[in-house]
C-alpha cells in the first residue's frame, strides 16, 4: 500500500448532543482512489465533514501529509489542497457556471489548458458557461461540483456520493471522469453507496459501521468476497445486480 496522505486516528465527533463518530481510524493512500462504504447513518458524510473542519473533533487526530490539522478552520484546511464536494453538491445556484468556477480557482485566474481539460471531461459546462448554475440539471450540477474541485491541482479530493439520484448514463460519464483522475494519480476519498460504481473505481476501500471503520483493505479483496460483503454491507453482488 502506498504511503498515506491522510490519516485519522481515534476521531470522535458529535453533532448537537448525538455522538456520530466513535473513534474513526482511517488511512488514505496517496495517489489512489479510496472508497468509503457503509450503510446510511454509519458516519461516512460526517467523516468527510470532520476532515474539512466543518464538524468539530472532540477527540483524536486528523493528519494531512503528516501535519496535524485537527481543529483548524475550514478555509485553512482547504488551502492545504483538500477539495470537498458535499452530498448536496453545494454549488452556488444564483451564480453562473463561470462564476462558480472563478471562485473555485482560489489561486487566481484559471489555467486555460486545465479549463479545456475540464470542458473535455464535462462538455455541458462549456455549453452553459454563462447560465445560472441553479438552472442546470442534477447531473450537470454534479459535473460542476466536481469540476470546481479539480480546476486547480489538489492534493486530495473528498467526494460525497456523486452518483446519488443520477441517471445511469450520467453515472457512467462521472465514472469516466474519475478514471481519468485515477490515471493522473490524484488522491480521492469517495463516499459511495453504489457498489458497482465503487467496485469499478476503488483501489482501496474502507467500510464504516456505527461511527467507526470496521474493515479496510484493497477493493479487490472486498469485491471478490461475497461473504465479506454480506457481513459488512448486508449485500451480495448477486442480489445487488
Amino acid at each position: 500500500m502506498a504511503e498515506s496522505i491522510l490519516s485519522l486516528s481515534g476521531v470522535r465527533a458529535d453533532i448537537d448532543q448525538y455522538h456520530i463518530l466513535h473513534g474513526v481510524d482511517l488511512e488514505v493512500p496517496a495517489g489512489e482512489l479510496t472508497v468509503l462504504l457503509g450503510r446510511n447513518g454509519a458516519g461516512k458524510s460526517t467523516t468527510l465533514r470532520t476532515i474539512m473542519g466543518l464538524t468539530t473533533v472532540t477527540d483524536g487526530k486528523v493528519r494531512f501529509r503528516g501535519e496535524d490539522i485537527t481543529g483548524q478552520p475550514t478555509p485553512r484546511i482547504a488551502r492545504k489542497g483538500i477539495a470537498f464536494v458535499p452530498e448536496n453538491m453545494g454549488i452556488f445556484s444564483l451564480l453562473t457556471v463561470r462564476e462558480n468556477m472563478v471562485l473555485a480557482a482560489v489561486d487566481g485566474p484559471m489555467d486555460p489548458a486545465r479549463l479545456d481539460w475540464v470542458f473535455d471531461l464535462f462538455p455541458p459546462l462549456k455549453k452553459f458557461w454563462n447560465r445560472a448554475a441553479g438552472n442546470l440539471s442534477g447531473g450537470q450540477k454534479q459535473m460542476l461540483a466536481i469540476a470546481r474541485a479539480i480546476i486547480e491541482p489538489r492534493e486530495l479530493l473528498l467526494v460525497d456520493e456523486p452518483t446519488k439520484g443520477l441517471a445511469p448514463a450520467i453515472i457512467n460519464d462521472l465514472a469516466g471522469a474519475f478514471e481519468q483522475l485515477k490515471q493522473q494519480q490524484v488522491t480521492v476519498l469517495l463516499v459511495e453507496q453504489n457498489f458497482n460504481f465503487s467496485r469499478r473505481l476503488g483501489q482501496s476501500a474502507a467500510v464504516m459501521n456505527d461511527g467507526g471503520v470496521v474493515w479496510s483493505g484493497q477493493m479487490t479483496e472486498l469485491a471478490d468476497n461475497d461473504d465479506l460483503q454480506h457481513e459488512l454491507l448486508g449485500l451480495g453482488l448477486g442480489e445487488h445486480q
Partner: protein
Amino acid sequence: MSAHDEMIGQSERPQGVLARFAAFRENKPHIFLLLLMMAVALLMMDPRTWVLLTISGLAMGAMVFLMASGMTLTFGLMNVLNLAHGAFISLGAFAGASVLVWLSSQASEPSLLINLAAILPALGFALVVAGLLGLVFERLVIKPVYGDHLKQILVTVGGSIIIMELIHVVWGPNEIPVPRPEALTGAFLLPEALPVIGGVALEKYRLIAVVLGLAIYGLMTWIIERTRVGILIRAGVESREMVEVQGYRIRLLFLGVFVAGSALAGLGGAMWAMYREIITAHMGDELMISVIVVIILGGLGSIKGCFYGAVLVGLINLYVGYLEPRLAAVATVGLMVGVLMWRPQGLIPVIKV
C-alpha cells in the same frame, strides 16, 4: 363587422396587452411601482411641482440608499441585524459637520473648487470615522453574537445608545447647525423656454445628491456583479459554508462588508447633514425607520432592491408630504405594507438556498 366580431376583437386585444402588462409587473416590480407612483403623482399635481418633488424625492432616495445599502448587505450576507446602524449615520453626520465647521473659510467661498476642498475632506472624514467605528464594533459587539438574532438586537440597540451618548459627550447635547458650502446653496433655473416645466428652480444640492447616489449605486453594482469580491459576497449570501470549503475566510469578508457598510452609513449621514443643515445625535434613529422600510421592501440583501426601495420611499415621502403633509409618515410604512402584501419577499428578493 358584426357585433359578435366586435366583441371578440375587443376582448382579445386587451388580453394581449394585459398579459404583457402582467408580465412586466411581475418581472420588473421595482420599475412598475416606480412608474406607477410617478404617474399617479403627476395626475394629482401641477407638472412644475411634480418635477420639483420628483428631483427632491430622488435626492432623498439617493441619501437613504447610501445609509441603507450597508445594512441590507450585512443582513443578506451575515444574517446580522445591526440596529446600531443609525448611530453610524449620526456619527458620520457629526464627523462631516466638524470638518465643514473647521474648514468654514473654504466652505464659504463662492467658488466650487475651493468649496470642494472642504466638502471632500468632510465626506472622506465621515466615511473613515464611521468605517473605523464599524471595525471596532464588529470585533467587539457583533462577533460574539453571530447567529443569534435576539442577542444581536439587544446588543446592537445597547451599542447604539452608547455611540449616541458618546456623540453627546464629544459634541455636546444640543443641535448643531451645519454650514452648507456656498457652491451647493441656491438653485438651477430650468430655461423658461422649456414647455410646461420652464422656470422651475431645482436646488443644486439635491441634484448633486442624486448624481452622487447614482454614482455609488453604479460602483456598488459593478463591484457586486463584476469583481471577485462581489462574486464572493453573492456566494456568501447563498452558502457561507461552501465559501469556506473553497478556501476563503468568510469572517474576513464579513468584516470587510461590515466596515464598508458602516462607512457608507457615515457618508449618507454627512450628506444628510448638509441637506438638513442641522443635526442631532438622534437623527440616525429617525432615519432608521426609512432605512428599515427600504431594506425590507427592496428585499433583504439586494443592492438593486435597496436602491429602488430608497427611491420609492423618497418619492412617496415628498409626494404625500405635498398632497397631505399629515400622512407623510404613514405613507412610508403604508408603502412597505402594500408591497409586502403583494410580494412578501420584497421587490427583488435574494433567495437563500
